[in-house]
């Protein structure tokens, strides 16, 4: 329990440090590291993300139509609630954890064990400036962008499938969507994703820079800790956001009135 508290405290301290050192992004090597990380986390993940988004959107809408015998309005409403607000950001976060989070924690743990982090200190470069700050910013921006892609693709794919399977045209569904959807839904999801990305990066960087040992065996342990804790943190943040913004969490099981 003390260990978990220390790790949480360490991540919080790291978050404070990142916030206080954002101007370091203007320095050429850090800016280059930021660009490289955005490419790996955001741009190169787009195709996989688009496919997942399309699958999820069509799957949800197919279930809704089949189980609930839904009409156009209900199908679109469920798309907005489930995909736009919840599934989109969560899918993006899970993809970022499994793809980039594991890569970052492994890379940093290997750098720590092989002495490359010490080399940075010998160059009078704080490893947090060069390794953590650009990764946190890149993860935050990339996760927000990926969430937006998922939303567009999943909602678009879902409505396309709905138009083929229920008695409603694509135009009718689109009209329902714009009537029911609020800009708050989109902004809420993107902002939430931004924090998801930052939280994932902080946890992964913390565990990468603090592997539980100095042998190569510490690398998979650090990766397991990072993946487990960042997933939990994303879930926790999701609940907190839902409660704060909509006054309810877990699809209404916990409400602000309680």
């Amino acid at each position: 329990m003390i260990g978990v508290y220390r790790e949480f405290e360490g991540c919080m301290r790291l978050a404070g440090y990142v916030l206080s050192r954002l101007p370091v992004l203007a320095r050429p090597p850090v800016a280059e590291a930021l660009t490289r990380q955005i490419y790996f986390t955001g741009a190169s993940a787009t195709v996989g993300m688009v496919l997942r988004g399309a699958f999820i959107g069509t799957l949800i809408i197919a279930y809704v139509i089949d189980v609930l015998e839904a009409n156009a309005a209900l199908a679109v409403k469920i798309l907005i609630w489930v995909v736009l607000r919840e599934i989109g950001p969560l899918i993006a976060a899970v993809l970022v954890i499994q793809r980039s989070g594991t890569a970052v924690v492994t890379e940093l743990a290997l750098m720590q064990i092989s002495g490359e982090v010490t080399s940075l200190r010998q160059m009078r470069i704080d490893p947090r400036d060069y390794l953590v700050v650009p990764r946190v910013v890149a993860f935050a921006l990339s996760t927000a962008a990926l969430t937006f892609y998922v939303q567009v693709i999943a909602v678009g794919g879902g409505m396309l499938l709905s138009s083929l399977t229920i008695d409603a045209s694509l135009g009718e569904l689109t009209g329902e969507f714009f009537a029911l959807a609020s800009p708050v839904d989109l902004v809420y999801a993107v902002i939430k994703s931004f924090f998801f990305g930052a939280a994932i990066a902080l946890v992964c960087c913390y565990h990468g820079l603090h592997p539980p040992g100095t042998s190569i065996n510490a690398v998979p342990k650090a990766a397991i800790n990072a993946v487990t804790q960042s997933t939990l943190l994303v879930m926790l943040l999701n609940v907190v956001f839902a409660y704060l913004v909509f006054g309810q969490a877990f699809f209404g099981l916990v409400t602000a009135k309680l």
Partner: protein
Amino acid sequence: MKVEPAARGEADPRSRASAQGVALGYEPPADLGESRVWISIGGSHRAAGLSDSQRKKLVSAVLEVRPESNTRLVLLGVEVDGLRSEGRASLRDRVAFLPVDGGLLSNLNAWENIVLPLGFHHPERLGEVAAAVNSLLRGLGADPHVLLEKLPERMSLYEKKLTGYVRIVLERPELLLAEETQRGLDSAERAAASRFPAAYLENCPGGTFVHLEVALER
């Protein structure tokens, strides 16, 4: 065990030796039985016969500008004990260390490794370094077009040392500690590495180059 150019054996040298004109002074407590290092400013020097643990302690003390307790450290004529954090940071900026393997980052190629600290600390100088890098590499027996594209995993040990060395020289430190510059090299590479001090002093006039050599343990 010997340490050049300083001699050891004085009972309490700290009461006599002045810090003035000293590039690197390192005096551990007498009861530890460790060597004393006392090197004057300017030129190339050799600190030989240090044990591995003492070498680590010395390097750590210099790079952190903070010696272990009861150990005296003088850097570039300044008595480190009693310095405030700003003074330590300012002193640290004037000192560099070249580890035996060059201390490179494995995911950056030679060029990116070379310009990393310069881009971080002096981005305004980035535009003028390409010619200096090419000239230094050619002078030390490497083809810049081949070396600069290489990742560390594709480099020989000499190329790693050379890349780390060029990276440091560009920053023009006043004191350069170089660890075992000849170790692990073949004869041609050793000859090339033996030109490191001269090339450093040419680029950093008035600087001090110190070879750290570890005693072979039997």
